[in-house]
């Protein structure tokens, strides 16, 4: 295993929600989540909307102040410390390539801004050179630097967003649903761009998405979240072929496979009901209200994440 670049230990992120005139209830968006990411590795993070996967990504790069737990970058604790000197090492690519680019700035300035902030050039010529290099890196041409974001298609905009993240030469990028706003034929272009960059520059990714097929394709390991908690963490192929947690099992069986024959042969495990409100979390295991195997023990306590061999972690009492 390569050197650990990022470690998240018992991360908690609560948001106070007003539930009455003087009353607030904590919304436990992320509750006790731990994982590590190795150098140049991709960790996939999947789960349904509202399960806290985006919050995990945002807490790591300090867009939120974590309520509890610790985050280590390269062995140094950064949870409450000022991380300005690490901003350069950790970047983010956002889901929506339309709202995450300033419409009043040229592409050159969008990509150049991080260079300006971190003073990564010695003169105008070097700045221009760096911007051209970055555009080339993500598959755009240097003429694009003088244009505005609205002149580009969705896929090209996402490339601009990636170039901006790469400008400061980061070691780790949080990719928050980077392809879900794009057309099918364009998604593959962006996925390949991410892979090429990783091979070339050795960047580690936290790849957040709800499309399991894409996450499996991108990641070495996958973590599954449900209602703010990690329920399973395993190697990508291991998780897809032998999921253990009942939630992961039904998630895998619910993925629509683009293959009519296996779609006909397969048995979908359809979950009953909806995800409970995170304000009214069930006691014990969060998944027990929709679980076929729920027993009394599940009502009493949240199962811990335990190793089932070969780095396959599962949080379930009954499986």
């Amino acid at each position, binding site marked *: 295993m390569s050197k650990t670049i990022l470690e998240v230990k018992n991360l908690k992120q609560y948001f106070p929600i007003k539930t009455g005139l003087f009353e607030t209830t904590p919304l436990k968006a992320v509750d006790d989540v731990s994982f590590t990411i190795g150098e140049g590795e991709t960790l996939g993070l999947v789960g349904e909307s509202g399960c806290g996967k985006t919050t995990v990504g945002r807490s790591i790069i300090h867009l939120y102040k974590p309520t509890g737990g610790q985050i280590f970058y390269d062995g140094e604790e950064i949870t409450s410390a000022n991380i300005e000197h690490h901003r350069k090492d950790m970047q983010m690519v956002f889901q929506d390539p339309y709202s995450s680019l300033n419409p009043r700035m040229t592409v050159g300035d969008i990509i150049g801004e991080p260079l300006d902030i971190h003073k990564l050039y010695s003169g105008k010529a070097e700045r221009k050179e760096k911007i051209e290099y970055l555009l080339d890196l993500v598959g755009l041409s240097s003429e694009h630097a003088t244009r505005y974001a609205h002149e580009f298609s969705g896929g090209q905009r996402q490339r601009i967003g990636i170039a901006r993240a790469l400008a400061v030469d980061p070691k780790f990028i949080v990719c928050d649903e980077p392809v879900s706003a794009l057309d*099918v034929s364009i998604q593959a272009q962006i996925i*390949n761009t991410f892979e090429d960059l990783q091979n070339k520059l050795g960047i580690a990714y936290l790849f957040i998405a*709800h499309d399991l097929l894409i996450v499996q394709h991108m990641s070495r390991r996958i973590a599954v979240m449900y209602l703010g908690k990690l329920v399973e963490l395993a190697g990508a192929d291991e998780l897809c072929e032998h999921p253990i947690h009942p939630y992961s099992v039904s*998630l895998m069986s619910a993925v629509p496979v683009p*293959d*009519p024959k296996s*779609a006909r042969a397969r048995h*979908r495990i359809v979950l009953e009901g909806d*995800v409970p409100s995170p304000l009214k979390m069930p006691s014990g295991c969060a998944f027990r209200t929709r679980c076929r195997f729920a027993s009394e023990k599940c009502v009493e306590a949240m199962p811990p994440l335990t190793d089932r061999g070969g780095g396959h972690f599962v949080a379930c009492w009954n499986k």
Partner: protein
Amino acid sequence: MSDTLLQVKDLQTAFFTDAGVVRAVNGISFGLEKGKVLGIVGESGSGKSVTAYSILRILVDPGKVVGGEVFFKNEDVLKYSKRKIRSLRGRKISIIFQDPMTSLNPVYTIGNQLMETIMLHTDRNRSEARARAIEMLTLVGVNDPEKRVKQYPHELSGGMRQRAMIAMALACEPDILIADEPTTALDVTIQAQILELMQDLQKKMGMAIIIITHDLGVIADMCDEIIVMYAGRVCERGTADEIFYNPKHEYTKGLMRSIPKLGQGHIRLQPIGGSPVDLLNMPKGCAFASRCDRAMKICLSEQPEEISVNENHCAACWMNVKQVYDEAAKGGGAK
């Protein structure tokens, strides 16, 4: 065929915008038989939703159907009077939209909206309509339907709202249900619930379904037949197996190569290069030519005709025409 419910012939729809005329649908033809599930797949802007809206005549300005015919049970829907088309919508052909939050009225209760549809199209009175509304909600798996009819859309979760939409669409037992991206806004596990529900209801009620989506997984799961659209035209059509295992149009082949498949190990994806076509500046020849690796001279200058690959499969690609010629030439040479 006698079982053909809907026959669309050379449908053309254009949007007359300030920037110019956008030909969103450019000569689409297809038939839909009773009890079949037809999938229309394509990327955004390929004209799949506009096709559905044209059939029901719910296009908004500046969109207009500029040519073609839409036969529902041998009557041309496009020639219907405004009054008559109203009796078709919701009664004979229903539609469910992608986003259940914006397609339900926020100031009326679920029950109210369901009852409105039922009372408009049938001669049931208020209490009968209410009973029918509860019956429909039960059918689509909404828990506690007596309580739900009194609730407003914002009180329901996304999956529940989509169920309510489906209940509304099916309340008058239509012959055709058009589902426009029915599960795109939903999570995977909820998507599985809704797809399962639609399959169940289709078996029970025997209606035909048109599913419009960009998700090839949903298509593979649900459809008997598939139409692949690109830039307002049909580029390929056929049974699900033919399209997935024997694609003949370069665009379809590209789509199949560009999606990751479960459990095939790590194979590098092969994306389709370039960007989707600009509908304001449509090329003269095949719209896909600029992104196609195997484009020939003729692709740039002339629109390919649809030719049949076999009885279950048609494709509009010059490569297939070339293949036919090549084979004929080879055959001729051997003689």
